[in-house]
């Protein structure tokens, strides 16, 4: 245990662990020291000089080592003649810091003046306007008149496409290096850099194709100004116009916490739409990051069915009738459904004595019930990644594996093809058997052991045989783990549906596959079913479609591959007459004589020994680690099963 250090900032005492830097200690007692280059997740570099403060340190007698006292008995404090950058100074016992003294504020304002010399201050058309550190400081402290000749402002390119996703405005860049350091220090893909020097310094990408990284969007959050923006959100909305709703990413089984920023949009005819996806802090899951796959999730589904073609009453009746009439109806879901939908479907299947399957290409669901978090893995721990290219399948898991290696963990990668994780692994093999062998060896010396696998039942079993502390399945869908917890049986092909009456719920692709083989399909989906419908016609099989709400429209929970149950909230009004999946199932069930709950929270409580309130607990301490536009987690960090 590191012992706490007590110091005084602006007259207030605060105790923090040794090694804490002054801006973080100040944050703890609600004092904001202005920073640009400093970010709590990266090593301080002292570049922007914005965080200048006065620092006094207790005087010690050189010969006796005793503290020197003033006449009144208080410790004598030595003040240097210079202001110091608070971000590069760890706290020390008895330190006294003035962040708002006349001298400190003068120094900070002087740095601001320098920063603004050639800055365009085009806030009115800048995506960052409203959530920009530079704008905030300028508003609070900027001079009303420039002492710098307007004609001498340096100009630079304002539209540089670093990649298809990220744009750079070189005029707005304040050379803080956060983006460069994020890529090299945190991600380990040094694809950004500075070129030229002095007042010509500018950001460039060094990779071909440009800004080649699955985490690039995060730089737009941590860029303290509007120099980096996403192609998707560029000129899309002003930050203050948008609502922020807590959600969970659906693109992979990591379960990154997100915020959906929504606004009424003229382009969509005045509908409220998701304008952008932002990370929401959860130190156990995604910290303050999300990957580009999640950030650029497409929530628009223009050709989606918004009501059953025959109306809800008839559709529900037809579904119930067909299911009741069948001698062996089958229920099939995939991992795209929330727990609440899964529970109601499973309950109905159980009531009517039917089989309930979850479609998954990855096997071993019954084995992953001991999976747990590996976000804090480090020295003494060993990780096996087998069969999965985490960079593609679950990018934030990839990032955490890489970071675990940074902290000293042993990493073994066993994949058929080369992956980007190879660079960070201590052992790389292109053969599973060898991988398992290497892991066995490494695990025998390790404290905590983690396996992330993607493969069939046999592979899962071989992994489980190594008896790791946690066994994590890298599922194709966000909530496949939830389906296993619920007791669904896994299938990886749909032959069993041949000639049957089937209740299919999930992605349109699953519906389409079911239609190819089944006799009659009750299709519950939130996706575009046009293709499914055309297949129906072609195959001549019969189908009734029950359009459900998607994640951005509903309340519910997901269980991540690490078995963390997390809550998401409705962010936009439901499209047309769509209904929540669990309500649809309950209505069908009712017609079949089975009563199911229709409130999300009640359904949740039927299965879990938990309530939504439990999932909504927060950890305000974590907030100290935010440095950028990542949202603070005020809506709940979920519960690890």
């Amino acid at each position, binding site marked *: 245990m590191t012992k706490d250090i007590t110091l005084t900032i602006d007259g207030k005492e605060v105790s923090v662990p040794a090694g804490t830097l002054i801006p973080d200690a100040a944050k703890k007692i609600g004092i904001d020291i202005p920073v640009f280059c400093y970010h709590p997740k990266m090593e301080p570099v*002292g570049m922007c000089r914005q965080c200048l403060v006065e620092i006094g340190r207790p005087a010690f007698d050189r010969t006796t080592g005793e503290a020197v006292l003033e006449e009144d008995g208080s410790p004598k404090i030595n003040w240097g003649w210079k202001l110091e950058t608070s971000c590069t100074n760890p706290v020390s016992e008895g330190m006294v810091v003035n962040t708002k003294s006349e001298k400190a504020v003068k120094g900070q304002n002087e740095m601001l003046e320098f920063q603004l010399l050639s800055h365009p201050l085009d806030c009115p058309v800048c995506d960052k306007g409203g959530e920009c550190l530079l704008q905030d400081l300028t508003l609070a402290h900027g001079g009303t008149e420039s002492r710098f000749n307007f004609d001498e402002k340096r100009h630079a390119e304002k539209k540089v496409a670093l990649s298809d996703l990220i744009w750079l405005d070189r005029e707005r860049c304040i050379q803080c290096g956060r983006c460069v350091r994020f890529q090299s220090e945190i991600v380990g893909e040094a694809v950004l850099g500075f070129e030229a020097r002095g007042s010509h310094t500018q950001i460039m990408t060094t990779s071909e194709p440009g800004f080649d990284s699955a985490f690039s969007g995060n730089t737009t959050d941590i860029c303290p100004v509007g120099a980096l923006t996403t192609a998707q959100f560029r000129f899309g909305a002003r930050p203050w116009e948008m609502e922020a709703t807590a959600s969970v990413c659906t693109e992979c089984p990591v379960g990154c916490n997100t915020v959906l920023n929504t606004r009424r949009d003229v382009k969509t005819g005045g509908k409220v739409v998701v304008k952008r996806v932002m990370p929401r802090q959860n130190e156990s899951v995604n910290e303050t990051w999300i990957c580009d796959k999640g950030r650029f999730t497409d929530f628009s589904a223009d050709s989606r069915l918004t009501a059953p073609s025959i109306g809800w009453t008839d559709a529900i009746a037809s579904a119930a009738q067909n299911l009741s009439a069948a001698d062996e109806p089958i229920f099939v879901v995939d991992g795209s459904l929330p727990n609440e939908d899964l529970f109601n479907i499973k309950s109905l299947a159980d009531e009517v004595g039917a089989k309930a399957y979850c479609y998954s290409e990855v096997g071993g669901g019954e084995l992953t019930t001991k999976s747990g978090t590996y976000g804090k893995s480090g020295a003494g721990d060993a990780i096996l990644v087998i069969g999965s290219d985490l960079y593609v399948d679950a990018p934030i898991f990839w990032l955490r594996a890489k970071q675990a290696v940074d902290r000293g963990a042993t990493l073994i990668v066993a994949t058929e093809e080369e992956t980007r994780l190879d660079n960070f692994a201590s052992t790389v093999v292109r053969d599973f058997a060898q991988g398992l062998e290497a892991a066995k060896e490494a695990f025998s010396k390790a404290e905590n052991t983690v396996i992330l696998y993607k493969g069939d039942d046999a592979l899962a079993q071989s992994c489980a045989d190594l008896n790791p502390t946690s066994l994590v399945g890298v599922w194709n869908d966000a909530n496949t783990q939830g389906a296993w917890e619920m007791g669904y049986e896994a299938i990886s092909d749909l032959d069993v549906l041949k000639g049957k009456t089937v209740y299919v719920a999930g992605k349109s692709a699953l519906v389409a596959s079911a239609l190819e083989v089944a006799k009659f399909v009750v299709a519950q989906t939130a996706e575009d079913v046009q293709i499914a419908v055309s297949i129906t016609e072609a195959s001549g099989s019969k189908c009734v479609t029950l359009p459900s709400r998607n994640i951005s429209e509903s309340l519910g929970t997901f269980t991540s591959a690490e078995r963390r149950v997390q809550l998401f909230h409705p962010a936009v009004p439901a499209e047309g007459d769509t209904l929540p999946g669990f309500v649809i199932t309950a209505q069908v069930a009712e017609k079949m004589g089975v009563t199911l709950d229709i409130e999300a929270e009640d359904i949740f409580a039927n299965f879990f020994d938990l309530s939504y309130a439990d999932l909504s607990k927060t950890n305000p301490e974590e907030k100290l680690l935010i440095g950028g536009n990542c949202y603070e987690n005020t809506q709940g960090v979920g519960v690890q099963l």
Partner: protein
Amino acid sequence: MDYMLLRHRDINNINQIDTFLKEDGFEGFKKALKMETVDVTNEVKAAGLRGRGGAGFPAGVKWSFMDNNNWPHYVVANADESEPGTFKDREIMESNPFQFLEGIAIASYAVGANAAYVYLRGEFWEVAHFLDEKIEEMEKAGFLGENIQGSEYSLKIYTHLGAGAYICGEETALLESMEGKRGQPRVRPPFPPSEGLYNKPTVVNNVETLSSVPYIIKNGAEGYRKFGTEKSPGTKIFSLSGNVNNPGNYELPLGTTFRELIFTHGGGIPDGKSIKAIMPAGASSSLIVANDEALDTAMDYESVPNVGGDLGSASVIVVDDSVSLDWLITKTMDFFHHESCGKCTPCREGSYWMKKLTERIHSGEGTEKDVELLKDVAYQIQGKTLCALGEFSTMAVVTSIERFPEDFKI
């Protein structure tokens, strides 16, 4: 006086290893190899040798700061020599290379380094080739490599070329550059003796500092202290340039007066003009008003500040009365703007601003307000930059305006 550093001026062909050996070459190193390493460091401490790269930090004290719980250790010779007006290290390396290399070897032995690097500015590529040859000759003669002179000690010396940036003379930028990164200063602390090259304890010393070491070990601290002053012992090479009849390098005891350097050795000011100002440390200097008091000031680390300057690397630039300082500072600002690495805001932005202001003032388009503003901007930079370059850029500007106001009358 016999030369201690510029020995080639006394002895022909001392850059040939045979000659060097005949002239007591490597005696200091041989002696050191028989001493305890800490005694070598203590001898250099006792000699009071101060760093010749600019800051004047005692070399022996620096060596004693090496973290002995973290290995390996490295020694890096700073041969970046980029300060305008400084051209002494080059002469040593070209003409008396073995003494320099011997100094590196002794320093490396003292701090337990088995690898040492000479970091040279990119333009010194010929010097680097030449040193490579000399290093090879030393290896052949058994003064580098494994088990040197039958001892347990092994050492390799490598040369490394920079890419032409003044900032890479700053020791931490130099180390970044050596590691293959952008040459930009690191935040200090940690200082190189705790975390230097590849985060390992590293001694960075100037070429001239290291070249002084063999004499100290051979003749002992007392022998060295026969030259110079109590607090600034030894001799120093003064690079004399500017408006002076005989520019060049002069090796003189520390404590020699400006007058003796400029008028006795340098032959005074050409064309019957008179001396106006002295820049004692190249472009980074304050401008000292060249009155009698200044001219009679001893050139050592303690005395120069009394007349408003710093000895720095002792590159004395003489400014005569035909020079208007509003012009001179356009030159220094052009240099510092060009060389600012851009890492920190006040220097990156401030050097640009000051360059623009000095140009405007010199072109005659400036106003009195511009002169005030220029001074203000310089003050605003002072004490707030990440490394000393930003600070340096303000020195000539501020002291010119304050001490020579008539040159800035609009």
